[in-house]
C-alpha cells in the first residue's frame, strides 16, 4: 500500500537519482571478478575484486578515451558510476 510519505520518499529518491543522472540501478554486489563494466565517465573497466558491500568495485581501467594515461591503473568504482555491465 502506497502512502503519502512513500510518495515523498519516491520523489526525493528520483531527485537524488536525477542529480547523478542514473538511468538504471545495477546491482553490483554479485558481479564476479573478470566482469567488464562501463563507467559514467566513459571508461571501460574490469572487476578485479568485489567487496560485496553494494557500494564499490575494485577495477582495472581497460579503456579511457578522455585520459589514456589511466589505462591499466587500479581504481575503485562507486555503484552509481557503473552504468552498464558489458560482460
Amino acid at each position, binding site marked *: 500500500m502506497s502512502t503519502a510519505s512513500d510518495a515523498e520518499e519516491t520523489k526525493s529518491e528520483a531527485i537524488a537519482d536525477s542529480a*547523478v543522472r542514473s538511468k538504471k540501478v545495477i546491482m553490483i554486489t554479485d558481479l564476479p571478478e573478470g566482469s567488464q563494466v562501463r563507467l559514467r*565517465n566513459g571508461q571501460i573497466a574490469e572487476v578485479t*575484486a568485489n*567487496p560485496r*558491500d*553494494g*557500494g*564499490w568495485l*575494485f577495477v582495472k581501467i581497460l579503456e579511457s578515451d578522455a585520459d589514456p594515461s589511466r589505462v591499466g591503473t587500479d581504481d*575503485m568504482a*562507486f*555503484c*552509481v558510476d557503473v552504468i552498464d555491465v558489458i560482460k
Partner: protein
Amino acid sequence: MTALVRSYGDRSLRSLVDLDRGLVSREIYVNEDIYKMELEQVYTRAWLFIGHESQVPNPGDFVVSRMGEEEVILVRDRKNELHVFLNTCRHRGMKVCRYDDGNTLVFTCPFHGWSYDTDGRLVGVPYYDAAYKGDMDKSEWGLPEVAQMCNYYGSVWATWDKGAPSFEDYLGPYADMARRVFQSTDGEDNGVELFNPVYKWRIPCNWKFPGFSFDGDRAHGAMTHRSINVAAIGPQGDANGGNRSPLLAPFPYTDYEMTVPELGHGGHNAIYDQPGVAPYKDTWFTEPGIDDYYREQREKKREKYKDKYIVGETAHIWPNVNIQPHRILIWHPHSAGVTESWRAYPIDRMAPQFVKDAQRRYMMRYGGPCGLTESDDMENWNYASAASTGTVAKRFPYNFMMGAGHAFKDEEGAPGMTLNYEVAEENQRSRLRRWLEFMEAGSWEDIYPVNPVSPSAGQAVKAERGTV
C-alpha cells in the same frame, strides 16, 4: 575539566578515597559525573586489552572490540599488519562495521558509502571527482587509529594516548607474568589461541565492582560461592568434594595478595620456596586422555623453568583486565551503572581437539553469565551497586580496611611487588590509588614514570617466608 578533577561539589576526589584509613566513598562507584570523567581520564589514557592475534589469522580478518564505551575494530590488513581503529565513519559517524567478525577488503559505510581500506586509509569517496573537485585530501580522513598498539606475545593491547609509556613499561614488574599467561602449558611463547567468540554480557553494576575486586577479593569466595561444590563442575567431578578448581600438586609456596601500587596491577600470586614448576597432578577424572596431554606439557615446562623462581600466574592489569592462563576477563564501562563484561578463553594452540573440547566445556560451565560459579558474582555486584546509589547510603563509605597497614615487601621473592596476606584488600587499595592518580592527572607526565611508593603500612618490611 580541571575544576571538576580537583573537586566534586564541595569535596575533592581525594577526600572521597582515604586509603590510609581504608574508607572509600560510594560516590565514586555511582556518580554519573565521576563516571564521565573516568572515560576521559582513565579510558583514553590507559593501555587496554583489545584481543588476540589468533582472532584475525588472515589478511582482511577483523573482529570488533571495545575501548571503554566505544567500539573499535581489530583488523589484519592486506600487508599482514594489525591495526585498531575506532568504528566510526569520518563523514557522519556511522559505524563502518556492524558485523562481529569476518573477512573484508574494505570497510564501507552504509550511510553515504565512504570506504576504508583494511589499513584505515580512506580509499573510496562517492562523487569525489565531480563534487569535491580535489578540495579534500583523502589521506587526512582515514579511520581514527589508536595512538599506540602492542602485540604482546600474541595478545593485542592499545591506548589512545601517545604519551603513554610502552606497554612493557606500563606492566612494570608484571611484564614477565603477563608474558607467561600467553604461553602454552609447555611454556612456549605465543603458544595460545582464543576460542571464538568472546562472551559479552551486561551486568547492572559499575565497572569497578568487578574491575577492582576481581583477583583482589579472595574473601568473597567462601560466601559468594557457597553453593558451587554440589554441582561438581571441576575436571575431577565429584572427587575432592566437588571442588570447582583443578587439583594441584603440593609444592612449597605461599600465596599472597601481590600488587604494584604505583602502577595499579596486582593479583593473587604465589612465591615458591624452590625454583621450578610444580609437577602435574592428575585431575581430569571425568574425561580420559586429558591428563596425559597436560602432564606431558607440564614436564616440558618443568624442564624449561627448572632453575627459575616463578612468581604467580595471574595478573590484573590496571584498569579493567584480568589475565590468567585459561581465561581473560574484561570489564568495559557501559554506563555509570552498567558494565559490559567480556570473557575470552585462551587454549594451547597445538593441543589436540579433544583437549580443546574438554577445556572449552569446563570454561563454559565454570564462568560467564551461564557458568555455575560466576552467576553468583553477578548477583552480588548487581545489588551492591544498586544499594549504593541512595542519598543516605552514600553517607556510609565502603570499608577497605582489610589488611591495611600490614603490607610488606619481599624484594628477593617478588621484586617490585608489594605483598599482603592472601586474603586482604591490598590489590583493591592499589587500584583505587592508581585510579585517583589517573583522575587527578593532567597528562601521562603526571603519572609516569612513577616513584616506588611504600606499601600502605607506610614502611616496607622484609618478609619472612611463610610467616604470613
